[in-house]
């Protein structure tokens, strides 16, 4: 029996052994199991490097001007810092704040409205969206299949030099699932490696009281949608999750995003309306519209955060910054 169990766990490990290194594996030992099915797309070094190259390749856009990295910059948690909504080719603007690409293997859906139900099909959106790359899947496949270099890399990664929709999209997932952030000061604190300051400790206490029911540690997100009561921007008229489900109670609900690396991922909220973290905390502490019928039940309690509390909470949020993630050269522009 024991041998059988060992055998099974060995098989389970083998599906994702190329995914992350031993250090990270020990850092996430107590985390929930990833949702991404590595069995269907086992991560290899060749596949990861191919996905990385595609991620940084502007030839994927219709006019060869922007790559994925234009809206997802590593140093800012793979989001578009300083831009309220994302920008595409020819200066076209989208309607939402580009999301961070952090710990995606634990997400059950993607986009602010959760419209994408599997990581492997997510990349179709930026490739084909009018306000992003405005290209077609067919054009991208024609491009990589006409490149001798890509053909060799697809062969090394997937055993077939001709890229298909499947191998192209799985290559992206090999890179994006590898963007694991698990070594922030908070992580080091929970592992007993560093101490928190008194301010950070108070911030953690406040976070556990007021924030952790939605932004759940250790991932600091939920795979769920809620309305935080923000008034609708009439120029965007974005009803969020309702646009996907057409269920009335989903109106104005948006993804509950991860807060990891939030110090660097400004601006904030689905439409990027807040530039400063202190504005976000102040909004939750002082400005929630309690009679807004869409407001999440979890926010229907006054937080009573003093100015000092708000500062302490921000000090805690800054412990979610993971410099080994933001400056990991493995995730940067390929050499």
């Amino acid at each position: 029996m024991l041998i059988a169990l060992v055998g099974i766990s060995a098989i389970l490990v083998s599906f994702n052994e190329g995914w992350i290194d031993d250090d990270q594996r020990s850092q996430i030992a107590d985390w929930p199991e990833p949702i991404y099915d590595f069995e269907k797309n086992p991560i290899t070094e060749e596949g990861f490097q191919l996905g990385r190259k595609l991620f940084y390749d502007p030839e994927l856009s219709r006019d060869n001007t922007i790559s994925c990295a234009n809206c997802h910059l590593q140093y800012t948690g793979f989001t578009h810092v300083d831009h309220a909504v994302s920008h595409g080719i020819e200066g076209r603007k989208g309607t939402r704040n580009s999301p961070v690409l952090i710990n995606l293997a634990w997400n059950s859906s993607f986009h602010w409205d959760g419209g994408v139900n599997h990581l492997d099909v997510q990349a179709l959106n930026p490739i084909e969206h009018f306000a992003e790359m405005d290209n077609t899947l067919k054009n991208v496949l024609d491009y990589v299949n006409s490149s001798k270099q890509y053909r060799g890399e697809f062969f090394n990664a997937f055993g077939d030099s001709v890229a298909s929709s499947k191998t192209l999209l799985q290559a992206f997932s090999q890179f994006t699932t590898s963007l694991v952030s698990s070594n922030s000061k908070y992580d080091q604190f929970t592992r007993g490696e560093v101490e928190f300051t008194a301010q950070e400790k108070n911030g953690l206490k406040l976070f556990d009281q007021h924030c952790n029911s939605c932004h759940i540690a250790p991932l600091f997100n939920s795979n769920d949608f809620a309305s935080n009561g923000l008034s609708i921007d009439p120029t965007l008229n974005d009803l969020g999750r309702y646009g996907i489900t057409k269920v009335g109670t989903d109106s104005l609900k948006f993804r509950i995003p991860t807060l990891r690396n939030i110090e660097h991922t400004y601006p904030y909220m689905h439409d990027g309306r807040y530039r400063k973290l202190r504005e976000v905390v102040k909004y939750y502490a002082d400005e929630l519209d309690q009679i807004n019928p869409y407001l999440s039940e979890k926010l229907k309690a006054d937080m009573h955060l003093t100015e000092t509390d708000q500062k302490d909470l921000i000090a805690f949020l800054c412990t979610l910054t993971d410099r080994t993630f933001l400056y990991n050269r493995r995730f940067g522009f390929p050499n």
Partner: protein
Amino acid sequence: MIRSLLCLLFLVAYSSNAQDRIEIQFDSHQFAEMYEIETLRFYISNIELHGKNETHFKEENSYHLVDLEEPESWVIRYPNAKFNVQLDSISFLIGTDSLANVSGILEGDLDPIKGMYWAWNSGYINFKVEGKKRDSNTHFEYHLGGYLPPHATSRKLTFPINTDEVILIKLNLSQFLDQIDMQLLNEVMIPGADAVQLSNQLSNYFSIE
């Protein structure tokens, strides 16, 4: 290529004895009177053949994209199917099953490059028809898809088989389009109540010849 048609016929042909094969054929009958059809593409999936209350044939990974412009897609062959019993019914889905809609990137007829996949709201367009109504010059586009309740759009159909030789199933597209008030609704491009309503109606226009 612009084609006009009143109805689409598809044939399910099988032999229960010496031939040991099944063939499903789709055949179009063209009429240029009411509608100019620019695109007609739909999935049939989960094809099963039954006899005496038992399933005798169940295709693995059974997803077929039928495309008016691709005559080879009107024929589905099962060269090695064998039966020792009298078959009495056929069932299949118009559209894809929910498994196909949640499994990420798939190949063959389910490859998103086929233009039957919604990227922004993951899932397949089960049935797509685009064209023009000649008398009013109304352009219409109906993309019927969605797999999540209450807006699921694939429909299971079962028909009795009463012959050993050929089964002929007809989609009367013209009648389906006739009953849509195109002044009120000339396009459906998202999952939702309209797509459900049209999918319910659509299943009434498949029949056994």
